[in-house]
């Protein structure tokens, strides 16, 4: 199975062409007249030289060395790797969307503005919020936007001492990183034995310096924060705001809305919940929705409508300003809007229902052979602990590699941090019962393999194009680019 692959640069041959440009048809001037010599590059640029056919073969081969949702089951917890409908790609590629320049006059982009406007209406209803900005380009970008809006809100009220943001211990690392980026201090709130936010500890932690609580609900353990009413009351009574991290929105669409739970700010991950492809790491999109009192602080521009004309509204004097050079990842929004329109209210509710059903069904199958530290109804995902297997000699990371050998993408491993050797499994609603059964069977086999020969499991994978890669060497002696020998 091992298969070496050359780099573009190693395939390059001097004089080979991969393009054809038309001849320059304006009268040309000597270069030195257009650009002083000292500003010119002295050494020619050493980019690769390949023919078009070679380029296609190179990248096609690279694609075969990659695993996507279209390749197989991808139960990567907290990432919502659902099927990415193909029609989304068609709509986003329409010239009327993909070839718009962001500075075009508004009258020439009425369709695009209408789409943004309509998307906002759908998201408002879905989440129970009063307005959305579609500008943030990713979830983390949405978090930063949300916290900046909260900061501006407090400051505007003359309440500038609130310098702390509370985060449960189970939170994704992005939350604390965002808090620092927004100039805040992080206060960690512990979880109780149910895996939920420890309400008593929260009451202790909340005070007049609390700016907000960031919460993912359901949490990264896949558990619904049942005390959400009390949590919201506690934070609000202290003058803080409630931030909803929408990473796990896929569990609750049509069942409950963040706005109704008491959240003041919400970000969604369109690349998770709204089925847009992850693209090997991006582009994503992280719209942020707010309640009425926070609208004045949203980034500019918002899209509004006057006399049947859509326009960019920059008239928000209290706005935090801009988060993105233009309007965010518009192309991703087109895909997500297509999905929303295809699903409708019933479809989205069914999607969340099936996501939760699939997760509970798979959890039920897997807990026969693996340790489930929080054994209760889960939402769209659940977390196993491979601590017992680790004691036998093969932990969560090794189980992941064994899954690769059997054609499955592994779950998220070693996260959340509050579960030792965590395996975080999110099947999503687009998987069949047969796939879940097959996955459970393979997990059972792996458990058996660990009992018989943990050492072997600890050295996998065996059927992949490369074996287990040495991350220590990569970090100790970083080689971050190809260099000519």
């Amino acid at each position, binding site marked *: 199975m091992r298969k070496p692959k050359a780099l573009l640069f190693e395939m390059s041959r001097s004089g080979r062409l991969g393009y054809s440009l038309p001849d320059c048809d304006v009268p040309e001037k000597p270069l030195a007249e257009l650009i002083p010599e000292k500003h010119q590059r002295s050494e020619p640029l050493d980019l690769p030289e390949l023919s078009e056919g070679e380029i296609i073969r190179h990248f096609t081969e690279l694609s075969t060395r990659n695993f996507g949702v279209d390749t197989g089951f991808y139960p990567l917890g907290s990432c919502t790797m659902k099927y990415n409908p193909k029609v989304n790609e068609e709509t986003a590629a329409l010239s009327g969307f993909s070839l718009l320049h962001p500075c075009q006059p508004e009258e020439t982009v009425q369709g695009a503005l209408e789409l943004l406007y309509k998307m906002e209406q759908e998201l408002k209803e879905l989440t129970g919020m009063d307005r959305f900005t579609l500008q943030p380009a990713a979830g983390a970008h949405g978090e930063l936007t949300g916290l900046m809006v909260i900061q501006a809100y407090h400051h505007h009220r003359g309440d500038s001492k609130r310098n702390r943001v509370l985060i449960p211990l189970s939170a994704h690392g992005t939350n604390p990183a965002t808090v620092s980026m927004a100039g805040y201090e992080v206060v960690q709130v512990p979880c109780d034995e149910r895996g939920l936010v420890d309400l008593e500890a929260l009451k202790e932690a909340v005070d007049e310096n609390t700016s907000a609580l960031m919460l993912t609900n359901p949490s990264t353990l896949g558990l619904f924060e049942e005390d959400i009413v009390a949590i919201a009351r506690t934070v609000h009574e202290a003058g803080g705001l409630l931030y909803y991290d929408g990473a796990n929105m896929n569990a609750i669409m049509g069942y409950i809305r963040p706005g109704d739970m008491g959240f003041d700010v919400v970000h969604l991950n369109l690349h998770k919940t709204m089925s847009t492809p992850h693209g090997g790491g991006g582009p994503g999109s992280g719209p942020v929705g707010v309640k009425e009192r926070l609208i004045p602080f949203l980034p500019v521009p918002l899209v509004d409508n006057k006399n049947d004309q859509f326009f960019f509204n920059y008239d928000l004097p209290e706005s935090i300003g801009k988060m993105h050079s233009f309007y965010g990842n518009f192309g991703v929004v087109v895909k997500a809007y297509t999905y929303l329109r295809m699903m409708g209210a019933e479809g989205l509710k069914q999607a969340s229902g099936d996501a939760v059903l699939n997760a509970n069904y798979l959890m039920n199958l897997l807990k026969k052979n693996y340790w489930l530290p929080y054994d209760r109804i889960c939402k769209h995902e659940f977390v196993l602990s491979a601590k017992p297997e680790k004691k036998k000699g093969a932990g969560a990371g090794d189980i992941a590699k064994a899954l690769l050998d059997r054609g499955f993408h592994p779950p998220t491993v*070693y996260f959340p941090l509050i579960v030792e050797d965590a395996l975080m499994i999110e099947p999503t609603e687009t998987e069949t019962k047969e796939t879940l059964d097959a996955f459970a069977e393979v997990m059972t086999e792996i458990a058996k393999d660990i009992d018989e020969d943990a050492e072997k499991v600890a050295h996998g994978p065996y059927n992949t194009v490369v074996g287990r890669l040495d*991350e*220590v060497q990569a*970090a*100790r002696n970083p080689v971050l680019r190809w260099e000519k020998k």
Partner: protein
Amino acid sequence: MMDYKIVDGVRYTQKHEWVRPEGETAKVGLSDYAQDKLGEIVFVELPEVGVEVEAGKSSAVIESVKAVADLYAPIDGKVVEVNEELLDQPELINSDPYGEGWVYKVEIRDGNQLEILMDKKAYEVFVAEEEEE
């Protein structure tokens, strides 16, 4: 279980740093237990020579592939020397934590600060308790 190397002649902190007095100065490093927990170390961020470190405050950063640990200063003082070998060979902390894997040398300001740290015996008990958990 208890096969971590715990040596004599140094004092230990509860955050698993060690400090070895050598006359006016003292060397500081990470205990064998701590390096084992961190795993293979890939990078060390050393303090600058001449800076003042404060007991209990972060004075250096030790990184493995998937974890980052602060090295908290065991005692107050001015850093007089750093182990530059670690820049190229951070793994020295793994292979020889009490010897070639030392991190920096500090001027001792207050000898009493050493007294309140753990000796070999106390640290053995402390590590055993941590392991229990």
